[in-house]
C-alpha cells in the first residue's frame, strides 16, 4: 500500500466573481522513499491540491479521499491534522520567511517544534537535537548559529533551517513546494543535493511541487503534470521527458530554451494564455491552446488513462491515440494526420491564436 493515496480530489473556492475550480479530480500516490514531482504552471492547482490535503485551505470546498497510512486526511479535525503536520508530514515552502518567525531564534523554533510534539523530551534534549539537525543540513558552526535569528541567515541558510525543521520529527512524507525557486543556481544545487541525500538516508517520501522542469529532471522518480486543475499526464521521469503523450507536456518541453538546440532561433511556445479557473473550457481544458485539437476535445473530457502499448505506469488524458507518443517526426506526423492539420497551417494558426488570445 502506498504511503499517501489521493483519489479524485476536488478543491474549489467560492469567490464574489464565481466558483474557482482549483482542482478538478486529481489522483496520485506516493511510496516511502520515492519522489513524486507535481509539475504545472501558475493556476494549475499543484499547490492548492497538497495544501487542501494538509488542511491549509480553510476557505475551500474539498471532496475526495486522501489516505495517509490508511487514514483519510480529509476526515480529520483541524487539531488532528495539526498534530500530523510536522510530525508525520512536513512541509517546506518556497519562501522560508513565511514559516520562520522573525522574532524567535532559529534553534528555539526547532526545539519548540520538538517539545510540542514530544512530551518526553526535555528542553536540553530538544536544543541538542536542534544543533544536530542544523549540522545535518550543512549549517556551519551549528552550536553557535543555533542562537541566530532568521534575518542573520542568508537565503540558502534559511532554506536549510526550514529543512532542518521539516526533519525535526522524523517525518514519513515531506511536501516541498517550490523549495528552490527563490534561490540562486549554485545554492539551488546545494539544496537539491541535500534534500536528495536526506531522503535516501531516512527513506522519506517526497512530493516536490515545482514549475521547473530542470529540477524535476534531476530528482523525480515519477512525474505528474497538471493543467487547469486536472492531471494531464503521469509517468516515470524518463518517459515524461523522452516519450510524452499529452500535447501540453510536449509543449512545455518544446518551449524550453535549449530544447531545440538551435541558438538564437525561435522557440516553440504554447500559444494563448492559461484559462480562467472560473470559466474552465469545456471538454479537455487545454483544447483552446492545443494545435492538435479535434472536435471531440471540446466536447468530452478525456480520462487520465493508460497509454496503450507503453510502460504500465504511463497515463495520459488526451484523445490522441497511443501511437502519438514521443517527440520525434513520426509521432508528429501521426498527430497532424489524426487532427486533420497540415504541418504549415499549424504555425499560421498558432500566431493568429496567440494574437486573438492576447
Amino acid at each position, binding site marked *: 500500500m502506498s504511503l499517501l493515496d489521493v483519489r479524485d480530489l476536488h478543491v474549489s473556492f467560492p469567490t464574489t466573481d464565481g466558483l474557482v475550480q482549483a482542482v478538478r479530480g486529481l489522483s496520485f500516490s506516493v511510496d516511502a522513499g520515492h519522489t513524486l514531482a507535481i509539475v504545472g504552471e501558475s493556476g494549475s492547482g499543484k499547490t492548492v491540491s497538497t495544501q487542501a490535503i494538509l488542511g491549509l485551505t480553510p476557505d475551500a470546498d474539498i471532496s475526495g479521499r486522501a489516505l495517509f497510512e490508511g487514514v483519510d486526511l480529509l476526515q480529520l479535525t483541524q487539531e488532528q491534522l495539526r498534530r500530523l503536520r510536522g510530525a508525520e508530514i512536513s512541509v517546506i515552502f518556497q519562501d522560508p520567511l513565511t514559516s520562520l518567525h522573525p522574532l524567535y531564534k532559529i534553534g528555539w523554533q526547532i526545539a519548540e517544534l520538538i517539545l510540542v510534539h514530544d512530551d518526553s523530551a526535555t528542553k536540553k534534549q530538544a536544543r541538542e537535537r536542534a544543533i544536530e539537525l542544523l549540522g545535518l543540513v550543512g549549517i556551519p558552526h551549528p552550536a553557535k548559529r543555533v542562537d541566530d535569528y532568521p534575518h542573520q541567515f542568508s537565503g540558502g541558510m534559511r532554506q536549510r533551517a526550514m529543512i532542518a525543521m521539516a526533519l525535526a520529527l522524523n517525518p514519513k512524507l515531506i511536501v516541498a513546494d517550490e523549495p528552490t525557486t527563490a534561490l540562486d*543556481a549554485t545554492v539551488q544545487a546545494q539544496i537539491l543535493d541535500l534534500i536528495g541525500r536526506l531522503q535516501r538516508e531516512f527513506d522519506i517520501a517526497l512530493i516536490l511541487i515545482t514549475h521547473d522542469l530542470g529540477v524535476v*529532471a534531476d530528482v523525480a522518480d515519477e512525474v505528474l503534470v497538471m493543467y487547469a486543475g486536472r492531471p494531464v499526464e503521469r509517468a516515470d521521469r524518463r518517459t515524461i521527458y523522452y516519450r510524452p503523450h499529452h500535447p501540453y507536456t510536449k509543449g512545455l518541453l518544446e518551449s524550453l530554451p535549449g530544447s531545440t538546440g538551435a541558438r538564437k532561433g525561435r522557440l516553440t511556445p504554447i500559444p494563448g494564455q492559461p484559462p480562467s479557473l472560473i470559466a474552465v473550457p469545456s471538454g479537455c481544458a487545454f483544447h483552446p491552446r492545443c494545435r492538435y485539437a479535434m472536435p471531440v476535445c471540446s466536447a468530452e473530457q478525456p480520462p487520465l488513462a493508460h497509454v496503450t502499448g507503453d510502460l504500465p505506469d504511463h497515463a495520459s488524458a488526451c484523445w490522441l491515440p497511443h501511437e502519438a507518443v514521443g517527440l520525434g517526426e513520426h509521432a508528429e506526423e501521426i498527430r497532424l494526420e489524426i487532427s486533420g492539420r497540415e504541418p504549415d497551417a499549424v504555425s499560421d494558426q498558432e500566431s493568429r491564436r496567440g*494574437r486573438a488570445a492576447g
Partner: protein
Amino acid sequence: MPLVEMTDLVKHFPVNEGTLLKRTVGQVHAVDGVSLTLRQGETLGLVGETGCGKSTLARCLAGLHPVTSGRIVFAGRDITNLSRKAMRPVRREVQMIFQDPYGSLNPRRRVGSIIADPLVIHKIPGDRRKAVQDLMERVGLNPEHYNRFPAEFSGGQRQRIGVARALALRPKLIICDEPVSALDVSIQAQILNLLKDLQDEFGLTYLFIAHDLQVVRHVSDRIAVMYLGKIAELAPDLYEHPLHPYTNALLSATAVADPDARRRRIILRGDVPSPIAPPSGCRFHPRCPKARELCAQQEPRLEGNSHQFSCHFPVRPGGSL
C-alpha cells in the same frame, strides 16, 4: 563604434545608521570597476547570482542611479551623471523592460495610458491613441483592450504591455532586467520570440539580464558573468569553453531539463560573501575549488580579447576543476 562603452564603472551605496542623524558606516560595493561594450544590434547577456550587481549596472546605464566613478559613453556621447535635462534626449534612446509584470505597471491606470506614457512625457506629436493601438497590435495584444486595467491581463500579457511601453519611442537600446523570470515556461517562450522579432524588425540592441542560464544562452550573442560587482568572464561561446572556475560552477549547477544529461555538479562551499566587505584579491577565492595563495593576495585582471576572463588559474579547455 560600439553603441555603449562603460569604462571602470563603480557604484557604491552608502550604508547608513541612525534615525535622526544619519552617518555612513560602510559602502555596498554593488558595481566595482566594470568595463563593458555593447555593439550595435547585438544582445549582450549578463548573468550572475543575487547581489552580484547586474541590476545595479543596468540601472546606472538607464540613468536611474548616479554612478560613483567611471564613464558611460552612449552613441559616442559621454552620458555619465548628466543633469536631468541633458539626460532627456538620451532617455528616448534607452528604454527598460522590468522583471515583475505585476509591479512594473501602475495598477490604477489604464493600459492605454501606461503605454502612451513615453509619448506624453517626451511630447511626441500625432494621434497617440492610434500609436498606442499600433504598438499593442505589434506586441500581440488586442488593441481593443486599450481601456482595460493591468489586473485584467495575465502575466505574459502584462509583460507584452511592458514591451510596448519600451518600444513606443523606437529606442536604440533596450535593457531587459529579468524580463521572463516571473513567467511560466510556455509564456516565457512567447515573450522571448517577441523580443527576437522586435530586434530583427527595429535593429534593437539588448542588454539582457537574467539568472536563468538557458534563457541567456538562447538569446545572447555574447555573455558576461558577474560576481560580486565584477566581470568574471565574457565570451561569445561561454558555455562551450568556460575558463573561470565560477562560470564552471554556475554552469554545472544549472538544472537541465534532460534526465540523461551528464550531471557532475560542482557544489560550491558556503554563500556569496557580503558586498559591503568583499574578499581581498580575487573575490571568488573563498569559495573557489582552485584557489591558491596568490588568489587571496592579488586581484586578477580581466584579460583576453574576444574571450575575456579574470582568473589567475583558469580552467583550461578540456580540463576540469
